[in-house]
């Protein structure tokens, strides 16, 4: 049918259907940024207390955990120097985890909830999950300022290793973006992704060194092949690496660094590879879903 010669020359390339990405990268970025900015503005100025509500969640969680684990169970005692500034370590980890949870849980429904846009306007589909991650980053930026103020008040002295923060955040963002792409694409066809991810996210919270320091887990799983395997899996979690390195570099040098906690710095390549694998998988799945998403919603 289309093989017959058209009466025109110089038509160039025919258009392609909807895609995840685009050739027009500046529009891509402007869209992502402005969608995230508008959402942020809504949250920030939408209610009287605005940002305070955003901060309230991690702070309340921090308050509860602090009372239970520090004042009642005293998990920071008996760790020597590593137990210093446990409160700051806890708050930092909570804030980082909140970012991860916001970015991923927010992304799950994002494409489906923007059905209106997807079905009516041609734009690179990847903008949607990325704007969710960017929005979570805005919150993370503000929350980290609060953490650092809390750290300084608690007596943490500024360190040169604070410069590692961008790297730590970059790894966490890469991981969150990969998961966000994967979940938002899967949710189009599998609507039970949402409750599944809610539970999974909880599991990740408790299986990462947020409350229980790596040092404690390390002690408990020191002996036996099975324990070694368990510990290996525990440290394969990219969140564990990110949180631990945050504690070490940002709060207290007496805690184990990510490299020390795993065994060696080359072993850190394993969770790093996992991050890249998740990112690649998420990208691939999203890219495959994007052209048909307007029809499958």
């Amino acid at each position, binding site marked *: 049918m289309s093989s017959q010669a058209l009466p025109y020359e110089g038509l160039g390339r025919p258009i392609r259907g909807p895609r995840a990405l685009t050739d027009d990268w500046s529009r891509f970025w402007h869209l992502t940024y402005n969608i995230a900015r508008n959402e942020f503005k809504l949250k920030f100025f939408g209610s009287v207390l605005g940002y305070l509500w955003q901060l309230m969640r991690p702070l309340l969680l921090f308050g509860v955990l602090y009372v239970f684990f520090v004042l009642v169970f005293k998990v920071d005692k008996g760790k020597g120097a590593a137990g210093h500034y446990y409160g700051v370590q806890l708050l930092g980890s909570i804030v980082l985890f909140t970012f991860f949870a916001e970015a991923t849980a927010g992304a799950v429904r994002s494409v489906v909830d923007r059905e209106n846009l997807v079905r009516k306007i041609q734009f690179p589909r990847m903008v949607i999950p990325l704007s969710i991650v960017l929005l979570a980053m805005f919150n993370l930026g503000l929350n980290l300022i609060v953490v650092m103020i809390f750290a300084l008040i608690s007596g943490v002295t500024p360190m040169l290793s604070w410069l590692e923060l961008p790297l730590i955040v970059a790894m966490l963002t890469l991981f969150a973006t990969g998961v966000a792409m994967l979940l938002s694409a899967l949710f189009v066809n*599998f609507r039970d992704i949402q409750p599944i991810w809610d539970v999974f996210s909880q599991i990740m919270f408790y299986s990462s060194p947020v409350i229980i320091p790596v040092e404690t887990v390390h002690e408990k799983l020191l002996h036996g092949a099975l324990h070694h395997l368990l510990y290996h899996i525990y440290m394969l979690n990219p969140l564990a690496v990110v949180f631990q390195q945050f504690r070490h570099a940002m709060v207290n040098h007496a805690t184990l660094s990510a490299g020390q906690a795993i065994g060696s710095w080359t072993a850190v390549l394993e969770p790093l590879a996992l991050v890249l694998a998740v990112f690649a998988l998420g990208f691939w799945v999203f890219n495959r879903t994007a052209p048909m998403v*307007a029809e499958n919603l």
Partner: protein
Amino acid sequence: MYGRLRPYGPHIAPVRSLVEGGHGTLRRMPQPFSSPPPIVADAVNKTFRVPEERTHTLKERALHPTRRTRHQSFQALNDVSFDVRQGEFFGIAGRNGSGKSTLLKCLAGIYGVDSGRIWMKGRLSPFIELGVGFNQDLAARDNVVLNGIMMGLSPREARARYDAVIDFAELREFEKLKLKNYSSGMHVRLAFSVAIQVDADILLVDEVLAVGDASFQQKCFDVFNRMRDDGRTIVFVTHDMGSLNRFCHRALLLERGSVVHLGEPHEVADRYLEINFGRDPEAAGGKAASRAGDGEARILEAWVEDQQGERQASLPQGQRITLKALVRFMVEVEDPVASLYVLNEEHVAIVVATSARESERSGRFDAGEEALFSFSFENVLAPGRYSPLFTLAHRGTGLDLMDRFEGGFSFVVTGVEAMGGLIDLPVDVSVARGPASVSREVRA
């Protein structure tokens, strides 16, 4: 940033390309004769697969791992080919579910096609519907900027055009309001204003003319006409044969995903009515547009002009208005009689006129010849909507019809001094106090 999609039509370059220098001069070059049209669709097929039983969850997949979901195929577009020329106003007509919106979405790149190819040359305004992506909780400015970016402006350009958008929409005094507090009319005005500010070369428009009040509709028409004159290409989806007739140079009629007719808008309108109401055009019942008569002549087009001779959809009271009908004779006809009935919304004929009374003999017309009948009168119609009905009859009583043209379009008369009558004749009213008093005149 937009270089890849730049067209090289003869139209007046938008402001931005003048700024860019080199592009501006390129764009004003006359269009080469062999230059391909901005839109070409070649044998486009689109099938939707609709699962009979939708598995929406992993649980269902896990419970029935071997069950294959059966799909029903629904062919939305079947071998659709057409092209749209530079500066053309192109209509896509069809009934609900005929595939016209699907076609528009394929052109816009929202749906991918299964087979066939589509070429779009020039910057496309990617909106199918107005106001998509508006956030109800934000004020006008944020929405205008985001919408502008969606349509391909840079944030700087979008912000720079904000004032023009707000002024065109006549919403300056409401710009601080959140969108959820806007009326639906304000909403549409804002959305339309954004859409026309993005200086796209190709506009894809889905049924936007159906919204807004008469004066805003008029504004929209003016904008579309101006864009068309600028050499923009407009593709317009509708099932209103009136606007199809009025605006489109050419049109495409879709039925069950296939092209049924491609050509003159009035031909398309006729085919559309045939498909919709069966073979007998009388069955249209005068609702949308109806034809009658022996067909020895055809009223191709009818419209209304204002005092300046411009085609208008709304006319102020008190000026001269002219209704015109363009007629083509299929056979040789002597002294045809054209009549005009201007009906108000209650279908009462307010003005009736016939060419027989003006000149006894209108002359002899050959087969294939065209003639323009004009009816001109002082606009004393009360404010409201009117639909003209033209008839064309053989010499004599005026009842031996060749063609009857009804409901093809309507126009609106605007005025502020409506007294409630069917017409508003200037009436001199005076009050006299006894024989010695001076009378005072009041114009009604």
